[in-house]
């Protein structure tokens, strides 16, 4: 029974860690499927988490925070778009630049506005955060371990953004594979010349893609500062943007496999927290660092073609110019 409770709690933690990863990974999917490498995921998320926490702290509304997070991330996405689409700049450099800029800007503005050493004030007022939603009878269901605990911990007890994220996977799959926009998006990432020849604007499609990426990164960043914790702290994303990128590659740029990759990576993270300093029978203490490094090692192995093969969109990273 003890083990069962532990597993249910571990899975629930996995879901909470996976939500921002999945949002960022799907954001990256739209951008990269259109042919724009998205190394700015980390920066867009960080910017959004700061903006969301700052606005929520000032206005007292998590929803206004969410709006500010989305607006900020979209603005950053448009900087990347302007550099890479309009000016045909190097996409890797643009993403890095935005990430580094935000890493400096967020604590700078935080210090100037709130004078708390770069953090935002603690979000503890009513409505300042996205808190867990308890489903009907969840408290009562807890009494019966199966399926009650499963219902109470795994289905119920998450915040709105987690549920939104889970709906987003089938929605993204539908947009990507079942709509005209999705078809064009996939085409522009493989062969922009063909799309251009068909009379569709390559640049407009790519701008739409980076804006979608901005919106989703905005939600992901808002989740970090107003749902997963109560306020912004320096370097809050801590590499989650890059982990999401790894998950996207691990999921071969497809929605459902990306969900799987995010759950796997989040599970290793939740497991690492649980296994901190625990002695396993027959194995001894597993260093937490090894578990935390696992997603990166797995992604390298995948990229090397040792476990399956990840094929990127063909035109990724190549600026499109009509004159050639």
């Amino acid at each position: 029974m003890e083990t069962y409770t532990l597993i249910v709690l571990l899975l629930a933690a996995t879901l909470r860690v996976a939500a921002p990863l999945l949002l960022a990974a799907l954001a990256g999917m739209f951008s990269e499927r259109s042919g724009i490498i998205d190394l700015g995921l980390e920066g867009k998320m960080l910017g959004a988490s700061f903006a969301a926490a700052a606005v929520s702290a000032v206005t007292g509304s998590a929803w206004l925070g969410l709006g500010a997070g989305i607006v900020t991330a979209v603005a950053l996405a448009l900087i990347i778009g302007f550099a890479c689409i309009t000016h045909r700049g190097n996409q890797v450099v643009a993403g890095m630049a935005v990430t580094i800029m935000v890493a400096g800007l967020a604590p700078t503005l935080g210090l100037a506005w709130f004078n708390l050493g770069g953090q935002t004030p603690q979000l503890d007022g009513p409505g300042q955060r996205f808190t867990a939603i308890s489903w009907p009878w969840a408290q009562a269901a807890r009494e019966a371990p199966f399926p009650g605990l499963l219902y109470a911990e795994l289905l119920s007890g998450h915040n709105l953004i987690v549920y939104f994220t889970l709906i987003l996977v089938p929605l993204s799959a539908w947009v990507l594979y079942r709509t005209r926009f999705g078809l064009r998006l996939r085409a522009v990432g493989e062969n922009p010349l063909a799309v251009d020849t068909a009379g569709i604007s390559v640049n407009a499609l790519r701008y739409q893609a980076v804006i979608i990426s901005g919106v989703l990164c905005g939600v992901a960043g808002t989740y970090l500062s107003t749902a997963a914790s109560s306020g912004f702290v320096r370097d809050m994303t801590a590499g989650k943007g890059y982990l999401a990128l790894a998950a996207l590659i691990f999921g071969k740029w497809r929605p459902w496999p990306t969900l799987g990759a995010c759950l796997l990576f989040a599970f290793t993270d939740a497991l690492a927290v649980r296994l901190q300093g625990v002695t396993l029978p027959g194995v001894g203490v597993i260093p937490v660092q090894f578990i935390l490094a696992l997603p990166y090692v797995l992604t390298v192995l995948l990229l090397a073609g040792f476990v399956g093969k990840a094929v990127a969109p063909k035109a990724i990273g190549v600026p499109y110019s009509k004159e050639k």
Partner: protein
Amino acid sequence: MSVPAKLPRWAEFGLLPFINLTVALLLSGAIIRIMGESPWNAFKLMGAGAFGSQDSIGYTLYYATNFIFTGLAVAVAYHAGLFNIGAEGQAYMGGLGTGLVCLGLGHWPLWAVLPLAVLAGAGFGAAWAFIPAWLQARRGSHIVITTIMFNFIAAALMTYLLVNVLIKPGQQSPETREFAPGAVMPAMHELLAKVGISFSATPFNLAFGFALAASVLVWFFIWRTRWGYALRVAGENAQAAVYAGISPPRIIIGAMLLSGALAGGLGLNEIMGAQHRLVLDFPGGAGFVGIAVALMGRNHPAGIFVAAVLFGALYQGGSQLSLDLPKVNRDMVVVIQGLVILLCGAMENLFRAPLAAMFRRKDGE
């Protein structure tokens, strides 16, 4: 591919970087204004903090030494058409190599330890770059992604080593014991004192000399050797290189080995010269500053030197700034760094195209 517009040499290496930097500083000035401080005052304080005294000059050059190493690392890879985001991890591992030599052979005389420390730093850095290089060359794995992953793997590995293996027994903080005096890079003020010049005691050390030597060697290698020529050809046009009998996979691996070795030089300055022990996260983002330095220095060792001193000044001046202006902290420098990367790297066409048009009109074409 759209060919970037051609500029005269002085505009390419002088005017364009200057315009980019000016715009980056103007934008940062606007941010300082928003925060309610005077930008002019802030920049004046920064300048004084970076060059106002022997102390500050020493610190500026000490920071610059790190950035020369990482800037050169990014530039060498860039000439081969590769974007090395992994200088941070390679510097981390290179420092481990240097640190292990200093820990193990500290009782030897300096003249015996120093070459080994240099070799170990370069070797460890190169080894860490080798795997992504090999994967790119032989298996086609995108080197940008693999080097990012290797930064994280290096960080995890170093945390493990410092927390569980190398930590000095009986202490809490994850760092090694201090190196024996024989394994410490001579400080500049000590060397200058020997020739009768007095200079304030700062972390500025002999590693700066190694950085300058590395700059000259990189220049010679890239522009004066057959190998360097092959590297540039492969970077410009891999297909043409194949027709010329150059093997791109070998160039990729060679360039990344050299790049990693250069990044590994950071340990000479930071570990052997300043910290005198292995600590957590000693590269402190220098690998990413290297990207800004290489882009602004146009991937030329002379330009990299100027850009590295400039960023050294920003880092030193920035920490001074946070002491004088309570509303501005050192993170402001990171903003400037990001803006420089954006303007010199991703948006360089923004000013290049109008400049090129201006020069064409002047030439009366």
